[in-house]
């Protein structure tokens, strides 16, 4: 295993110390493993947004804490959902009285731990609502599975809902917008290599030089199927087919598109992929109104790409454009 670490046991603590040192605009509670904004929390009476999940997906979620996006993030161990105590500590730290929204990626572990945290927070008199993100169309039939995974759309939910919360919307409205953004977002990912979790010490699976895993999630698990490695154009076609089969888009529809690297894919290649996505969508007269190309929801050192398409309405686009000031996403004033 080749990693720039000191030991698997200390990765998370040391990375959190690094985040604290690198970002004076964030406050890192090392004991409770909670990342908040250093400048207090949110404006008086504002709804707080708390997300979290296993580590190894950076910049998600800590990199999205800041004005216009998350109020707090709870990083779990690598690829392991955080424990309820973390979300409770976060809620207690940031609740202004207007309540907190939990943004949860749909994995059994995340859902259960956030659910327990919500119960604990309620006992402390904190209003909690939860949005579960489940955008990954590689997981199809939820009667046969734990339901679709939450992946790239998490960034869209956090950004758009963050802007709405910043505008002073109440908890119900903020939660409702979260559900709307999730409902109109779809993702699909392929991996060219497995990733290596520090504590596991070796790659999650073996993949021959000429093959790829199709329909992977963000935890190093194998995908739905294995296929011969194909040109970017065909990979994009496969991904868009799955996305559009689940959420058809019509000519004139406006979208926010993210082409996201899983960790070890050069930005040069992500732009090649984005070019294919743009060519395909604009070929159907679908409008890419906004886009992100880069590493936003990673899977440690996995080579591969995820494509997320959100069919955005005017509200969402306006909220997308609203100022955001976090380590990983920053625009506007």
């Amino acid at each position, binding site marked *: 295993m080749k990693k720039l670490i000191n030991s698997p046991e200390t990765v998370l603590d040391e990375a959190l110390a690094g985040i604290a040192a690198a970002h004076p605009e964030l406050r890192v509670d090392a004991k409770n493993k909670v990342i908040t904004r250093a400048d207090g929390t949110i404006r008086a009476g504002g709804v707080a947004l708390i997300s979290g999940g*296993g580590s190894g997906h950076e910049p998600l979620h800590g990199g999205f804490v800041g004005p216009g996006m998350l109020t707090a993030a709870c990083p*779990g*161990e*690598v*690829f*392991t*959902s*955080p*424990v*309820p*105590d973390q979300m409770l500590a976060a809620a207690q730290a940031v609740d202004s009285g207007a309540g907190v929204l939990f943004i949860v990626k749909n*994995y*059994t*572990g995340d859902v*259960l*731990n956030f*659910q*327990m945290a919500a119960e604990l927070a309620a006992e402390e008199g904190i209003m909690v609502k939860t949005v579960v993100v489940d955008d990954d169309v*590689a*997981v199809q039939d939820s009667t*046969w*599975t*734990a339901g679709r*995974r939450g992946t790239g759309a998490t960034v869209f939910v956090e950004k758009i809902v963050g802007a709405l919360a910043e505008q002073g919307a109440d908890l119900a409205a903020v939660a409702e917008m979260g559900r709307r953004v999730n409902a109109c977002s779809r993702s699909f990912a392929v991996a060219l290599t497995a990733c290596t*979790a520090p*504590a*596991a010490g*070796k790659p*999650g*699976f073996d993949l021959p030089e000429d093959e790829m895993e199709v329909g992977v*999630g963000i*935890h*190093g*698990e*194998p995908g*739905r*199927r294995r296929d011969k490695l194909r040109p970017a154009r065909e990979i994009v076609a496969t991904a868009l087919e799955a996305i559009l089969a689940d959420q058809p888009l019509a000519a004139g529809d406006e979208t926010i598109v993210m082409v996201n690297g899983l960790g070890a894919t050069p930005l040069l290649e992500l732009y090649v992929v984005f070019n294919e996505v743009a060519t395909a969508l604009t070929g159907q007269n679908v409008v890419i109104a906004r886009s992100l190309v880069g590493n936003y929801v990673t899977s440690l050192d996995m080579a591969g790409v995820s494509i997320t398409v959100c069919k955005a309405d005017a509200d969402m686009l306006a909220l997308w454009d609203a100022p955001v000031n976090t380590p990983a996403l920053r625009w506007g004033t």
Partner: protein
Amino acid sequence: MDIDLARSWVQAIAAAVDQHKDYLTQLDSAIGDADHGINMHRGFSAVTTAVANMEADIVGAVLVKAGTTLISSVGGASGPLYGSAFRAIGKALDAPTADPQQFAAALAAGLQSVQKLGAAAPGDKTMIDAYAPAVAAFQLQVDSGGDFAAAAGAAADAAKEGMRATTPLQARKGRSSYLGARSVGHQDPGATSTALIFRALAETVAR
């Protein structure tokens, strides 16, 4: 079962998890995210510390503490599930000792709490597939007059058989369900740790 035995049980689980940590992770690597051994190890290490010097006057106190500690330290799917199980078992044992019949009922309460939380049914390729037969076997032994050791031994055997039987199943809950048909042919990590938990019970009681 008394307080010391309860403590010995969770310590025996911790020892077993420590020993089989890499194996559990390896199983989870095939159809999950390669952390089950690490999760269980983190959790039961914390449990060992938590119950080491705790004062308790009922059996359940130790087990509730174990469950609460698992919830606070494991994360993942297995943390809340095992955590609730131990909390439920512990809550059902509110006396200084428990007889086999009472313990059978407590195990059943634990199972119920896992199923309530995780909504998995037998055959979904989860810890339930080891847990449910273990509870049934324990109850059967008790009902036919078996003592604690016999019941725990039967439970451990049933859990192991249930664990083995997960291999041909297609997962329908948890992370391995994402693999669809590709989950077939692999033993479920959670069912495996459940088998360890019941084996630890049998060995503790037999000592």
